[in-house]
């Protein structure tokens, strides 16, 4: 029966222009539309917008946080690398100083030892020289004796008689 009424109403509307202008339908449609729209607005206000907006905000926060963290880590790494470079430079300077010191100490010791050696050698040289001089003087004295002996022997062979020691002495002194 309701269908029949509907059909009659539809036929009526079809002949009298647009069904949209059938004011009898308006109150129900308006009340329903406002009611459903109110529910949709409420859902958007309470659920959807906070959820989606929260997600977007959380993502932006996360990205900003991650970038900040990455920047912090990079700065930290740069500081560390600068510190390491500085430490390296210090170590190198220390090593160079150490090497220079060692070299200086070694050369000082070497020159000291050389001077000592030189002095020892010079002393040994002078000792040797004085020994040689003494030996030569002794040898020279011995040469005098040998000459006297030789002269006495030569005189005995030539004259057949031994020459007195005093005479040989005199003759040698006269030669000298």
């Amino acid at each position: 029966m309701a269908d029949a009424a509907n059909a009659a109403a539809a036929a009526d509307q079809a002949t009298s222009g647009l069904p949209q202008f059938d004011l009898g339908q308006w109150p129900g449609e308006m009340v329903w539309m406002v009611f459903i729209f109110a529910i949709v607005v409420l859902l958007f206000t309470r659920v959807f917008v906070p959820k989606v907006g929260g997600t977007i905000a959380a993502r932006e926060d996360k990205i900003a946080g991650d970038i900040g963290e990455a920047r912090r880590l990079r700065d930290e790494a740069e500081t560390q690398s600068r510190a390491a470079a500085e430490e390296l430079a210090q170590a190198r300077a220390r090593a160079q100083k150490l090497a220079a010191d060692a070299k200086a100490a070694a050369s000082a010791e070497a020159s000291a030892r050389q001077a000592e050696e030189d002095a020892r050698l010079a002393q040994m040289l002078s000792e040797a020289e004085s020994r040689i001089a003494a030996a030569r003087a002794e040898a020279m004295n011995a040469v005098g004796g040998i000459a006297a002996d030789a002269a006495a022997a030569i005189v005995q062979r030539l004259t057949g008689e031994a020459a007195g020691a005093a005479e040989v002495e005199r003759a040698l002194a006269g030669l000298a």
Partner: protein
Amino acid sequence: MEQFVIHKIVSFPPVVIAGVPVDLSITNSVATMIFAAAVISVFFLLTSAGKVVPGRWQAFGEILYDLIDKGMTGPMIGDRGRPFLPYIFALFSIIAVMNIWGIVPGQFTVTSQLAVTISLAVVTFALVIIIGFLRNGLGFFKLFVPSGVHWVMLLLVVPIEVISFCVRPVTLSMRLFGNMIGGHVVLYMFGSFIVALATFALTQGGLAYLGFVGSALSLGMVIALSALELIVAFLQAFVFAALACTYLSDVVNLDHGH
């Protein structure tokens, strides 16, 4: 115009509200409204998963959110527009879904009902007035008095401003209603040409076979117009929401920029 006829699905006895009998029966129109609201709810419940790296559907939901937030309330109302984001988003969503669903052949187009577009326009208009008085008190009336205008000119300008403000709900509702009904009437006309010309060709024969050409052309028009209607459906939802933003901006930013 049978496509616009409302018929009852579940009947309820009419109730009288403020002396007006209101038939709250579930009609095809009401059922489509409920369906649209359900589609929106399910879509946002499923897509607001809140993942940091969004899936395809979540990304779509967030694009819509950005469209409203960074495309409408942000630039049109400014920082004070944030509180209206849910309202504008809901307005855009429900109109867009009802418009687009109406393009599906055989489905009811709720937004082609003048009562529906008037309801949405009046609710928006009422919100503008309420916000206007809440934010500005009686300063709300400064809306009709442009600053820096000589008082003689004001005699002319103020009535114009008042009229242009008062016709807003009318233009808002008529624009959406007109776009929707116009598109569907044209689609209906070309659709009936398809059948009429083909029937004519089949029954008459001979030269009347040329009717098939017209029938095919009409079919092409229906396909092309359906694509156009899809754009119109989205665009009209956008326009409705954007105008709501503009009207809200008028009253929210009344103290500066006027």
